[in-house]
Structure formats: C-alpha cells, structure tokens
C-alpha cells in the first residue's frame, strides 16, 4: 500500500516539476524519484553483489527507491561514461572501483577521464588481497617464496588482464624484485582451481576466493596485502611484516556521481552511506566478504583516488602494459 502512495507521490512531483519548467533538484525533497545506481559489471560479479547489498540498505537511509542498473562493457568504461554524461542531479550514481577509476586511465585513451568528469561521494569498502601458494610451490613463508622465485620465474594466475589480482601480483614482483609470469583466467574461480590443481605457482587474490582453502590447509597464505592483518586470518602477516617493503594492494568500491553534483545532495548521500555502513548487519556482511567498511568521504575520497591513480600508474608503466 505504501508503495503505491510513494509512486503516486513521485508522479505528482514530476508532473509539478514539468509544469514549472523543471526546477533544479533541491536537497530537502531529494530523493523525489528513484535513484539509478549504475554498476559497470554484469549482474552476478563481486562488485554487483556489494552494490546490491549496499543499495538495499541505502534505500532505507535515503527514504527513496534505489535501482541497481548493470551497464557492463569495454573494461567497465561504459558505466563510467554513462554516469559522466548524466545530469548532476543526484539521480544517476555509480559504484566506482579501482579498475575503471584509477587503472583504466593509464591503459585506455578514455573519452571521459573519471577524475575530471566524476565527483567522489564516499568510499564504501576496501578489501585487501592475499598472497597464496598451492601444491606446485610448497613454501611456507614469504622468505622461502622469494628464495624460490630467485631460482626460476614463477607463474601466477589472475582473474583477468588488468584486474586487481593481476596488478597486485605485478606490484609484488616489482617491490620484491622477482620475475613473475602472468597467466590470465576469466575470473578468480578458474584461476584458484588451477592453483589447487598444481598447474600454477601462486596468486594474489581476493580473500573470499581463497580463505576456505587456506583455513583447510589446501593453500598456504604467505601474506595479506593490506596495512593490517585480517581478522579471520590472524596468523598471516602483512606483506610488509613478511619482508616486502612498501607493498600494499587492495580492491575498493566507492560511490561517485557526475561532476557538478550540488554539495547538499552530495553531503546527504555521504551521510546516508555512513548510516548504511554503520548498520551492524551490513558491517558483518561486508566483513564476511573480506571487505573493511570505510569512512572516507568527499574530498578525502578524491585524494585517496588520486593517490591510488598515481601509484598504479607507475606499476602499469613499469610493467609496460598497454592496450591498443
């Protein structure tokens, strides 16, 4: 019943706006119609799952409908373009993650630079990766791993070209000064499968994709790539502790909108995001998924993205990855 009323309400408001020559949206009555949350990946991926869980709770925080719309394609650049082109009225938002936001500008000649055409609203979550080895490389510690790497080029699997697991392993090779060879897979699943089967040496992968096998002893976790140890893997050191200087890598997700978003709406969205992330249920769901909820918002989030962009730019340049 309430559903009907809100819809009729939305209809009346939009008709009114139409009659008065489409007034700019004001923060007080925002949101007065459904918000479209664009996800740059097909339904069913990791980013999509986080977006849907997040969107469901954000509806309550904002008091309006939030519709998740998948706009996959062109290495997630389509989603960026769609939102960059949208009206900055707060009704079209994007779940941005490190691939399209900070890595792709180094790989592609993008028509819309995310740093210039998108406005940071809030970081949602930051998920560290884990360095794991399988039966093909029976080492127990990072030191043994680095020793083995000196004896011969190690082969690692990734979830795909330019994915977090690809760049994470590249950076590990660069920071530790070892030669590594890349085998791209389509998604983390098949790559972990070949790691367990002993066909490849190691992976730097997301925690959910490997944690069960690590706890069981099938795979050995050498290090986590975040600044701190991970709560469900307390015995696994961070990479820095394990002797790889200055090595961190993570997969993160944030909320961004088109450039020129009214500051009040942006602030309202950041507050709603903070409220959503403070919900213990959402908190535990994110943690179950290996992610740590974040409190960065607005300009701080923008600065974080700029730093990430500079950092991964160097990795991409040093590894000489380019896409023609």
């Amino acid at each position, binding site marked *: 019943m309430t559903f009907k009323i809100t819809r009729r309400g939305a209809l009346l408001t939009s008709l009114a706006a139409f009659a008065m020559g489409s007034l700019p949206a004001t923060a007080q009555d925002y949101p007065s119609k459904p918000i479209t949350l664009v996800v740059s990946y097909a*339904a069913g991926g990791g980013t999509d*799952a986080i977006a849907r*869980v997040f969107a469901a709770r954000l509806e309550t925080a904002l008091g309006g409908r939030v519709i*998740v719309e998948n706009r996959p394609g*062109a290495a997630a650049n389509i989603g960026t373009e769609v939102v960059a082109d949208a009206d900055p009225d707060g009704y079209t938002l994007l779940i941005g993650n490190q691939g399209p936001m900070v890595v792709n500008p180094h790989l592609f000649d993008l028509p819309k630079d995310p740093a210039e055409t998108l406005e940071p609203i809030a970081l949602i979550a930051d998920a560290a990766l884990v360095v794991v080895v399988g039966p093909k490389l029976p080492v127990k510690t990072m030191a043994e791993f680095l020793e083995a790497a000196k004896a011969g080029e190690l082969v690692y699997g990734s979830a795909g070209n330019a994915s977090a697991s690809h760049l994470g392993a590249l950076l590990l090779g660069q920071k530790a000064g070892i030669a590594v060879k890349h085998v791209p897979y389509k998604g983390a699943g098949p790559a972990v499968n070949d790691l367990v*089967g002993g066909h490849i040496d190691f992976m730097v992968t997301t925690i*959910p994709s490997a944690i069960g096998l690590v706890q069981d002893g099938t795979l050995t976790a050498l290090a986590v790539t975040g600044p701190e140890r991970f709560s469900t893997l307390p015995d696994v050191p961070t990479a820095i502790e394990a002797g790889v200087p200055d090595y961190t890598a993570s997969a993160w997700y944030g909320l961004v909108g088109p450039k020129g978003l009214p500051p009040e709406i942006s602030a309202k969205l950041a507050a709603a995001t903070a409220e959503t992330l403070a919900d213990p249920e959402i908190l535990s769901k994110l943690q179950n998924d290996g992610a740590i909820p974040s409190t960065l918002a607005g300009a701080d989030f923008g600065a974080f993205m700029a730093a990430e962009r500079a950092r991964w730019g160097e990795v991409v340049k040093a590894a000489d990855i380019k896409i023609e």
Partner: protein
Amino acid sequence: MWDMIANLGLGLSVALTLKNVALCFVGCLIGTLVGVLPGVGPVATIAILLPVTLSLDPTGALIMLAGIYYGAQYGGSTTAILVNIPGEATAVVTALDGHAMAKNGQAGLALGLAAIGSFIAGTIATVVIAALGVPMTRMGLLFGPAEYFSLMVMGLVLAVVLSRGSILKAVAMIVVGILLSCIGADMETGRERLTLGLHMLHDGIEFVVLAMGIFGFGEIFKNLADPEARDVVKAKIGRLWPTMRELRENLAPMLRGTALGSILGVLPGNGAILGPFASYAVEKRLSKTPEKFGTGMPAAVAGPESANNAGAQTSFIPLLTLGLPPNAVMALMVGAMMIQGIVPGPQVIERNPELFWGLVASMWIGNLMLVIINLPLIGLWVKLLQVPYRLLFPAIVAFCCIGLFSISNDPAQIVMAVIFGLIGYALWKLDFELAPLALGFVLGRLLEEKLRQALIISDGNPLTFVTSPLSASLLVVAVVALAIAVSPKAQKSREDVFKDA
C-alpha cells in the same frame, strides 16, 4: 555406505521442513520462469534476488538459489523444444531433435521425455554427489589448461558427429563458430580483435545473442518466408504423454546421458556444456537408425536432457567440496555463502553438515517438484503451439527484445541479434547446419583460452599437450572419433539421408 544413508537422512530432515520445501518450490518456480523466457538467465536472476535472500537463513537461501539454477536449466529446454530458441549452449542439442519432434506433432512426447529424463538424472546425480563428491573433485583437479584444451578438441570432433549433411560444411561451420568467438577484446592483452571498429563488438558476442539471432529470429524469418510449412506444424498435435513403451525404450539413453553429464559436470570452467553434446554423439553412434537423428528422434532428446540436468547437479560438487565455482552461477553461490558468513571450502561439510546435506537433499526434492510443476504444464505448452502463428511470432519477437536488452541494458544487442537472424536464415538457405556453428562458438572461446594458458605455463612448448597422459589420451579419443565420423560407412549413412531429403 551406511554413512551416506545417515547423511542423506540428515539432509532430508533439513530439506523437508515446511519452510525449506516452500523455498525450494519458489526457487524452482522462478527458475522455470526465467528458463522459459529467452535471454533472462539464472545468473542475473540470482544476482537480483541476492539481497532478498539475506533475510533468510543460509540453508534456506542456498536451497532457493539452487532451485533457481536447476529450474532454469529445465525451463530452457521447454523454449528450445517449442520455439527452437536455446537459451544456453546445452539446450542447442535439445533443440535439434526436440524442435523437430514438436514440428512432427510430438511436442508433448519431447517435453515429457525431457521432464522424466531430467528427474531420473537428478535423482542419480544427487546420490553421486553424496557418495562420490570428494573423489570426483580430485578428478576435476587433474584438468589443467593442457588437458582442458585437449578436451575441447574432443568436443569439437563431437560437433562433426552431430551434423547430418556434408562433413565439409559442418567443419566449416565449426571453424566459423570459433572465429566468431575470437571477436572482441583479447583476454591476454585487451587488444581489439576482428571488431571492424564497431563498438558493439568490443566485448565480443554473447552466446545468447548469437543463439537468439540464428535460431530465434532465423526461425521466424524462415517461417514467414514459407507459410505453408508452418501451417502443417499447427495441424498435428499428438499425444501429450509418453507411453510406457516409449519410456522403456529411452531409459538406456537417459542412464548413459546421466553418466556422461555427471562426469563432465565436475570439470572446471563449465565442462558441463559438453555433456549433452557427448550424449547426442553416443546415442547417434549406438542407434540402429543414426540417419534419423536430427529429424525428431526421442533418444536424442532423452539422452542429452538427462546429461544436461546431471551436469547441472554435479557442478555443485567442486563448489561444495572445495568452494571452487565451475561456472558463473556457482561463483554467485560462493558470494551468497560468503555474505551469509559461511566460508565455502572443504570445511563446509564438517562445520555446516546440515547446510551441506540439506542442500544435497533439496536437489532431489527440487527435481521432484520440477516434475510436479512441469508435467501439468506440458498440456499448456502444447496448446501454446496452437496459438495462430500471426500472433505467436510478434510475441516471440517482443520477449526476445526484452531478454536481449536485459543482458547488459544495451540496445545494440538487439540489433546484433537481428543481424544474426538474417545470417542464420541465409545459412539455412545454403543448407548449412547451425548446431555445429553454435558448438564451435562455445568451445572456441575455451579452446583459445586454454591453449594460450597452457603455452604460457609450458614456456611455449607445444609438447605439453602430449606429455600429459590425460591430455594425450583425450587427443587420441578425438582422432579416433573423427576417423569414425569420416569413415566410408558413416559417409554412406549420410548419403542415404541425402537421398531421403
């Protein structure tokens, strides 16, 4: 043995609670619906329903999501049989003889055999999961990129066996299919390949788009150009149910299909798609009337459908025993488990036995429900064929358009499917077969991916494909099968077909 019975008993006690039975039913119902609708697959549906399942307990949530998955596999066959639109690669085989049967007025028989075959396969596969889950997982792990490549080569040979007419044309269609699968960004370098500068080709061609185009739109173009042929179809509506004798005749194909599907379903990287193709090839080889394959042979529906369902079921094995998802739906199940706070992996069976065995037992209950849901529906589906074609085809066009758009909210996919429809019509006019094209397309992608992975791992040494005993034996099987397919005897039966036509 005793353990297994005790475990299944535990599972049944979990799965048979009123709430879980209801969730299983809802899952099967939604699954059947999205399976029947062209274009809307189980992956998108499960993803959309994921937030809804958060309010459920983990076991209930997984039972419902699993129900959507095998319900969709099931519903997909219905569309393949009735209107010749295979929503997934596995249904291409079902469409071959299934749609031919529908045209001969045997839609009821085809749907009935598919339902009963799926149920038998589902029942056996449930026991296989319970009894052989762990050893079968180990077998799956033996398949690295090199072994997988050889398996794909074997699969492509099966596509030759599958065809009816000229071998040269069948081989050409397979190669064209592989070429079409190469279109789009290269997986290793991201470089654009064969896109002719077109944006809509950048991410490659989705299988659903190709299938809806060449089969769905192609069939409509064909029927509109030749109105007499389609009116003949409408005139004959045969019996609704298979007789006991027909069931008995098709029991052996169902069992063989179940065995093939169960084994291939465990393989990583969606090996389950080979199951129906292998089953079709085996049945054609064993049949006394191989020349009738493609014109509506019941065994060519019963076998592959059983293989399809058995494979769908056993693809849960790597997920449940190791937490390794063999396909996109299973990857989503991993996500669902993680969000619920259950770490997928070898420990699930010890830490959450009620979840593990409850899910396994629910699969059998789900299969029973699918039969209960679908047998009465057969009458309805068959009646659907009596809808005048002048109304049926605009409806199919509308459903296809919505389905195509929903894949990635991209209207260009609709345009692409229309172009494939015209290509499909032209290929039919030139007497090319489309099933080998579809199989080449599906396997081509995996073929190249695995070839390149294997060669990176082996430092570019092609001997890697023969030094692995498993890979070498698969290649031998492929060569032998090819030799049989092109042997003079097989050739002769092909020529007979030609004379009949």
